[in-house]
């Protein structure tokens, strides 16, 4: 009966918001929407800027790789600027502000141009290698040119698709994160918040929820204070609310969903982050309560939350995405000493694949997010010195992981995606630099060397903008690799054919 009652509530909540949804998809008219949750803006001229910042920001992320899309962007930037100039005139902007905007745009164009050059250079290197290998064979040279052009075209299509997609889907997301008062959940909440999203946090204890809200609001204030003007507008929509929720209790979960709908209107992203482990030891040493808590938090909690999120999302206009957090054991390899945790996480993977089939035709996407190894209580409780030496190599701070996961979570589409932190390039990097990383988090005695959370965050604001090699490799090069990859295949083909070709006359 409870579910029936809820069905009535949920659409009712959306009806008075329906006007907003088509408008926001246009992307440019966001300013005309009156969100209940947004504090009134002090001055009128603010209204134009958010749209611009969304668009330009997203284009920056979009990372178009090649001539065509760069041109496209240059064109649309021109159009945009024209529109903006009109808007500026009508709103009587002060002159210096518009110049500032112009500069921003120019720097973005320069950025794209730089990326274009880098891409061309990387493909050019492969191209040259290919020509060298082919040794002036006309047919081979043709092949190389064709594959290069093919790669460029495919890259263009993917790139422009991404750009268009991101522009149309710009705007703040409504996010629910369970178990988000510490560890990775908190870092994710902070990262979403600093991306300008509205976040609902939840945890078993009311006090820690309140404390976390206060802390995150402070982070947000600092973020607003230190951010550039365009980011500041983006952050204007950000807010954080929270409620206590024990994920094993169906009523609590239902309350959380209702709370989120009441506060935010709809839910775009629901992250089942709540999980517990209770230390590393053989199953024999786990008490009944331990086992019960692990099973009910990890498995029952995730199942109940997923179901509730599916209810809410299938009743709203916008599509929604549910993320379940992977952990050790998800892949099916054995997890001695964390047998209970491992098998619940393995079960979750099965749940995910079943749900993917069940929800194929609905607009609800079910995904997994895998944070890899994160330096949180879950991992560190009961770990030995040897473990910690291992952690030095492969572990990351929750903030680092969140910074990588959140942008991907925000733009996820479809269903059944896996968002991983520990991707092959990262693992490769970790293994290659293992020697350097020896004393990264823990010293020989297993004492922690990394700063406490508060200090970390202070440094964090500065390093947010710092260039990260792996991040760049991940975010930017996805399309570049298409053309590089196709060229490499051709090169390999040439190498193979030339060796066999040489061998044949020899024998």
């Amino acid at each position, binding site marked *: 009966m409870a579910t029936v009652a809820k069905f009535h509530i949920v659409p009712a909540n959306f009806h008075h918001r329906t006007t907003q949804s088509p408008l926001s998809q246009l992307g440019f008219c966001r300013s005309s929407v009156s969100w209940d949750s947004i504090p009134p803006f002090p001055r009128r001229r603010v209204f134009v800027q958010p749209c611009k910042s969304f668009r330009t920001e997203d284009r920056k992320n979009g990372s178009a790789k090649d001539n065509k899309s760069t041109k496209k962007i240059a064109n649309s930037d021109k159009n945009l600027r024209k529109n903006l100039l009109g808007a500026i005139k009508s709103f009587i902007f002060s002159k210096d502000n518009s110049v500032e905007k112009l500069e921003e745009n120019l720097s973005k164009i320069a950025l794209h141009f730089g990326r274009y050059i880098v891409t061309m250079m990387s493909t050019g290197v492969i191209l040259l290698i290919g020509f060298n290998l082919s040794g002036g064979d006309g047919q081979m040279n043709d092949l190389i040119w064709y594959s290069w052009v093919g790669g460029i075209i495919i890259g263009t299509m993917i790139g422009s698709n991404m750009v268009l997609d991101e522009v149309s889907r710009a705007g703040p997301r409504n996010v629910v994160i369970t178990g988000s008062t510490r560890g990775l959940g908190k870092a994710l909440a902070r990262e979403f918040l600093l991306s300008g999203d509205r976040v609902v946090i939840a945890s078993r204890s009311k006090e820690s929820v309140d404390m976390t809200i206060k802390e995150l609001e402070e982070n947000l204030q600092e973020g607003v204070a230190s951010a550039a003007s365009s980011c500041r507008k983006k952050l204007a929509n950000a807010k954080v609310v929270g409620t206590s929720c024990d994920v094993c209790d*169906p009523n609590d979960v239902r309350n959380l969903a209702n709370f989120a709908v009441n506060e935010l209107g709809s839910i775009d992203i629901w992250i089942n982050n709540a999980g517990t482990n209770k230390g*590393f030891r*053989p*199953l*024999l040493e786990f*008490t*009944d309560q331990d*086992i019960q808590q692990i*099973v*009910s938090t990890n*498995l*029952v909690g995730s*199942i*109940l939350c*997923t*179901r509730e999120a*599916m*209810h809410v999302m*299938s009743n709203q206009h916008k599509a929604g995405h549910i993320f379940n957090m*992977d952990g*050790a*054991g*998800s*892949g*099916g*390899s*054995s*997890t*001695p*000493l964390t*047998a*209970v945790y*491992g*098998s*619940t996480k*393995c*079960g979750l*993977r*099965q*749940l995910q*694949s*079943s*749900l*993917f*089939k*069940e*929800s194929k*035709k609905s607009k609800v996407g079910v995904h997994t997010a*895998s944070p*890899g*190894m994160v330096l949180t209580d879950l991992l560190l409780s009961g*770990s*030995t010195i*040897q*473990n910690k*030496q291992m952690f030095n190599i*492969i572990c990351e701070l929750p903030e680092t992981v969140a910074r990588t996961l959140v942008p991907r979570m925000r733009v996820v589409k479809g269903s059944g995606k896996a968002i991983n932190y*520990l991707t092959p390039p990262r*693992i490769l990097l970790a*293994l290659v630099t293992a020697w350097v990383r020896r004393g990264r988090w823990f010293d020989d005695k297993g004492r922690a060397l990394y700063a406490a959370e508060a200090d970390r965050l202070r440094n964090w604001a500065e390093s947010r903008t710092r260039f990260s090699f792996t991040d760049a490799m991940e975010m930017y090069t996805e399309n570049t690799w298409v053309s590089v990859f196709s060229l490499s295949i051709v090169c390999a083909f040439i190498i193979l054919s030339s060796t066999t070709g040489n061998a044949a006359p020899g024998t």
Partner: protein
Amino acid sequence: MAITATATSSLFNFNCSLSPPPSLSCRPILSSLPHHHLRLSLARKFGFSTTLPCEKPFISKPSVCSSSPGQSQPMVPPYNILITGSTKGIGYALAKEFLKAGDNVLICSRSAERVESALQTLRTECGVQHVWGTKCDVRDGNDVKNLVKYAQENLQYIDIWINNAGSNAYSYKPLAEASDEDLIEVVTTNTLGLMICCREAMKMMLNQGRGGHIFNIDGAGSDGRPTPRFAAYGATKRSVVHLTKSLQAELRMQEVSNVVVHNLSPGMVTTDLLMSGANTKQAKFFINVLAEPADEVAKYLVPNIRSIPMSGSTRPTYIRFLTGLKAYSQIFTRLAFGARRNRYLVEE
């Protein structure tokens, strides 16, 4: 059409082993596990498992472990057998078959009445002195502890412990439509209950000189194939196989060789649990083609289970009733010759 496809594949899953993954194929589970997975898991999963090789010093041998008398007390028939959830379905059939083979059997179930009535029928068939029974809810740690106490009082020791209790709440529907009670029942019975039973069984068997064998019954989804319409059940059964694997690795780390954890796959059995989902065309097709009555399955499984202690083997195994070859050949004969049509259920 998508629904038909999913139903097909999901029902297929009941046999759990159409293409057995290499790491599970009976023999080398233990020997291959940790190192085999080391690099892979480094690459993709998170390193709890990868830390293991260097964790060895941390693991203390269980104080209760007494392996030396194990050799002096070889397991000889008749065996003492404990089966959870054994008042109906496959559990009951297994109990009957073990009794026929001359073993002593302890049955248990959530409901005291069902235990009583099952005891009466079994006693009339197989004699009073061979069968015992008590009420036990596997989800309750104290109940399971009492079960162990009851077993020690009446049978002194248990050679084979079969974790059979499982539930799917007898409902097949999308997760979004499942009720709170059903979901919680499925997960707590299949996962929590199993874990508590495994722990108590291991505790008990480490204390008895002869050691013992624990069998966990798998189900649809344990091979990783999606199980739409019973997502929660599939998730729990997948976790069963994973738990078995982890426990095998744990026991190996503790250098315990006389307590062994096995998987047992009965395939598709025409019990209430399966038949409650027989409401689609595809479900009916696969039930007719692949399912067997519980007695048939038990007749195959029991000699296989008994052969393990008889041979003195301490290698973990994965006994399957419905193997991939068998399943494919049955599907082939059905499609080619129309065999087994309308066997249990009338197909349209």
